[in-house]
């Protein structure tokens, strides 16, 4: 066996970097896997908490027949600011609340054509006997901010109905286990 050379007092100190590189790789892996790069997270909103919600089915969302609509307050910037919302209050300016579909923002006046486009992509093949017309099989998930006006969410549900979509779901956050049942 080869004997290791004794370090001279005059040699510069050397450090073994392998352990550090290993830890750095592990950290990198943890943050990469934990990062959520999902499109729906682009909308900064806080969901209301509800302990009775059905858990989210991630597999279902990867299919084409799913549309997420975020109902959120306009973001500050570009000359726009809302002191009430920024201070955590309940803003009731009707033009401050927007619908967002795949990163694009809409108002109640212009969202219907987009909903009709989404509906047309997944029309059912047979006429529904109850409705007496062709309906869309596309599922809609409404993610509304907890301070969003109920009227805006209600209007959106009504517009989905007009666009022949009936499979509507509303999102809520699951509270942590210690808050369950409160």
């Amino acid at each position, binding site marked *: 066996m080869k004997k290791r050379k004794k370090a001279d007092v005059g040699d510069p100190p050397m450090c073994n*970097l392998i352990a550090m*590189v290993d830890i750095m790789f592990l950290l990198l892996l943890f943050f990469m896997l934990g990062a959520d790069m999902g499109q729906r997270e682009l909308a900064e909103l806080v969901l209301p908490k509800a302990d009775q919600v059905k858990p989210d089915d991630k597999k279902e969302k990867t299919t084409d027949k799913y549309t997420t609509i975020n109902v959120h307050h306009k973001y500050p910037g570009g000359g726009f600011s809302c002191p009430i919302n920024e201070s955590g209050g309940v803003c009731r300016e009707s033009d401050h609340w927007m619908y967002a579909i795949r990163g694009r923002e809409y108002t109640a006046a212009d969202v219907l054509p987009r909903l009709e486009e989404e509906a047309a992509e997944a029309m059912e093949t047979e006429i529904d006997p109850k409705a007496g017309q062709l309906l869309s099989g596309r599922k809609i998930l409404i993610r509304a901010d907890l301070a969003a006006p109920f009227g805006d969410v209600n209007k959106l549900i009504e517009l989905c109905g007009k666009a022949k979509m009936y499979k509507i*779901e509303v999102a809520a956050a699951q509270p942590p286990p210690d808050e369950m049942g409160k």
Partner: protein
Amino acid sequence: MAGGAMDEDNPVAINVTPLIDVIFCLCVFFMCSFRFKQLEGKFDTWLPKGKGSSGVANATDILKEVRIAMFWDKAAARTIRRMGTREVRDDTELQTLIRDSYRDLMLANVPDAPVTIDAQADVPWNDVMKVVNMCKREKIDKIEFALGAPPPQ
């Protein structure tokens, strides 16, 4: 920043400095953009097929449902909840009232009785979802949102 070690033992010296620099940069990027995911779930609110809006309920219909009216008090910035003429502030009290009213309707042989949430447009979505959650706790599946303005206070 980083340097090679044990040059004499290792015949092929690899300079790991750029590798560590890149890993540091990536780590800083992911650490700054990291946010813990919030667990999400959903409530099914499928629309009835071929029914549409049935308009304002008449007096006899109101007796066949549990109706919760919600108003937004702008001055106090809070939601006022009413069942009948009674104002309900406490969540536990509201849940008990929903449970009792629903049970009464079941005993009165109205099995399809819905819980109707009749909220003003300004009421925050959070307060509406709270009531929906209470209904789900009581295993009530038929929940309806009333269209239009609630009756005057």
